[in-house]
């Protein structure tokens, strides 16, 4: 309505104060290019120090290791994007891995589908409890983390669960390579691209960004903020489930303390090194790919360059800080918490 009315322009010169178009906002190009740049710089440094890195397939190893981190980080980045945090998603991935390992033999192809679905459901429940009880996500998912850890222990009978048959259902993920990198990695990259498109080109994505930037404003705009948050947590569950599958594809076994049991902090770090603002509303899943690659590169690079093992932890910590310091978007005067 009211398209019918036209207001009398009250100013004779609407262009006088009108500024020239400027598409690029200050710092935004770096926000876009920072994460890949940091990854490439780090890679360059490693190649200079260890020229065999490429020929030995270093990149393939980085992609291999980056895959589960990336999947966890993508979900985390979406949740951080709505201004929350999901401390339980790595544990969901591990649970999915354990369930898949114990059912793949009997259920075949159905098993991974079921397991991912189940973990997605856990994410959904997380989101619902969060939205309706309003327990801060940090506390809620810390609680869920505890529950999931116990579930993993109980379901695995506190031992390592091995895939007994049908391993081929998942093995292709790392056996098949495209352009020298494992299929699972490309799968995760495609997922990142899809999430990027969702955030950029859909109303749901725009809604999630709005919630992350100013939830009150989103509420007063009539957005279904609860559902947007539930969606974010559900996505986190889904990507965690996929991460679980990659763990099985990699090792054919899973246990509560084995591979995949320590993806939480790398996942968060990857999201942030990928330019995700911890305060919410700024998420670029494509850059999270580089964030994950950077995080995966650190231990590999450290070993390749020959950092003494005692000092690796120290170097790792320092590099994370430097990487984020370089990729952070700092609008002038912006508040950083």
């Amino acid at each position, binding site marked *: 309505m009211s398209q019918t009315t036209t207001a009398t322009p009250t100013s004779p010169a609407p262009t006088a104060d009108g500024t020239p178009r400027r598409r690029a906002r200050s710092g935004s190009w770096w926000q876009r290019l920072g994460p890949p740049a940091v990854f490439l710089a780090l890679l360059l440094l490693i190649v200079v120090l260890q020229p065999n890195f490429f020929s030995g397939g270093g990149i393939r190893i980085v992609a291999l290791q980056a895959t589960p981190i990336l999947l966890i980080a993508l979900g985390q980045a979406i949740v951080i994007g709505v201004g929350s945090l999901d401390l339980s998603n790595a544990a969901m991935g591990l649970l999915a891995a354990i369930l898949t390992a114990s059912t793949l033999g009997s259920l075949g192809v159905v098993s991974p589908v079921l397991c991912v679905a189940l973990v997605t459901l856990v994410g959904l429940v997380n989101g619902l409890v969060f939205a309706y009880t309003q327990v801060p996500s940090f506390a809620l998912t810390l609680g869920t983390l505890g529950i999931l850890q116990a579930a993993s222990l109980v379901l695995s009978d506190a031992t390592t669960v091995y895939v007994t048959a049908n391993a081929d259902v998942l093995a292709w993920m790392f056996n098949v390579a495209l352009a020298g990198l494992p299929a699972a990695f490309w799968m995760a990259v495609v997922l990142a691209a899809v999430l990027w498109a969702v955030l950029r080109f859909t109303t749901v994505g725009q809604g999630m960004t709005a919630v992350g930037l100013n939830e009150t404003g989103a509420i007063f705009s009539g957005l279904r903020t609860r559902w947007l948050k539930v969606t974010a947590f559900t996505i986190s569950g889904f990507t965690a489930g996929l991460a679980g599958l990659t763990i099985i594809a990699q090792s054919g076994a899973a246990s509560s303390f084995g591979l995949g049991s320590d993806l939480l902090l790398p996942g968060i770090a990857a999201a942030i090194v990928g330019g995700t603002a911890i305060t919410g509303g700024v998420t670029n899943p494509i850059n999270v790919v580089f964030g994950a690659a950077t995080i995966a590169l650190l*231990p590999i690079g450290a*070993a390749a360059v020959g950092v003494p093992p005692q000092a690796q932890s120290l170097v790792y910590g320092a590099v994370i800080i430097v990487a984020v310091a370089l990729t952070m978007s700092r609008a002038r005067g912006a508040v950083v918490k």
Partner: protein
Amino acid sequence: STTSGSSTGAAQEAIPKEDIVLVASVINLTNPYMASMVEGAKALSAELDVPLKIVNSNGSSQTEISQIQAILAEGKKVVLMVNTVASSDAPPIVNAVKAAGGYVTIWWNKPDDFEPWTVGDNFVAFQKHPGVESGRCTGDALADGIGDEGNIIALPGVQDSTTSQTRVAGLEDALKDHPNVKLLEQRPANWDQQIAFKETQSLLAKYGDEIDGVWAADDAMMLGAIEAVKKAGRIDDVKFASDGLYPPTIEMMKSGMGDDAIVGETFHRGYMAAATGLYTSYLAATGELKVADMTKEQRNSLFKISCVTPENLDEFTKYDTDVEGWVKQLVENGPFDTEPATLIGQGPEKLPGS
């Protein structure tokens, strides 16, 4: 023992010594056992005059696997000994080593049905000390130590570790012969001194003076438990038994800490394990050991573990003063016949009663 089955994988080619790099992968660098492993690897590296790299997994499977892969990617022929963080790490590591044409021996953890001979020559061997034996020997000692009557608590390691599980199974089996000794409760303490301290504190609060003995799956946890018991003022009334005979444990046993509080231990050494594992791989790499000709016992091996009590302690302390000497012997006698860690049987280990 039988000879190994069909060897899949590429035919074994002798690798010139100059192309070899030794790699020892350990779980962390702040546990005395791991420190001892590094010491053994270094001694072997010096003895063979082959360069060595250490991988510090920092308790993370992810870190472990990626660092090993990174080293494989450098192009040198890798001769590897891994103390896996978790059993499930073994397949990806072995596969990566195989793809790169290196040779690997795994220590302590692997899936039971993941046998070296089904993988091929590159997975040279899996080695460990029997856990059941360890649990039996310390369980018996502890039961005897508290006078064959009373209550004990147990501190297993990380819950999903087979090493810990077999040791606990041994303990439980040993207690069958001591009907008056009751295992009150088990609290996993993740191989960690600090966690063991807290868990023991809690259990002391729960059971008070009922506790007569503490069993731990390794010495780091026992040391935490001892501290907690000391602080509760009960060090003279409680007995301890555990696995590993760490240097501080030796001191405590010698000095008769408490009222001779430590009653049972086992002897096996990180440096022996690491050097044995690395040397086995090395022999395969250089072709001195034809993997195809190795017996199953040699490829999935159990090595001797010795029960230590305050009485026979001196028999074992002598080894630690001369690590280089022991490694020299290893190189002389081969990986399977060097006292006190000689090959005694084939894995996987059977749990009592199964």
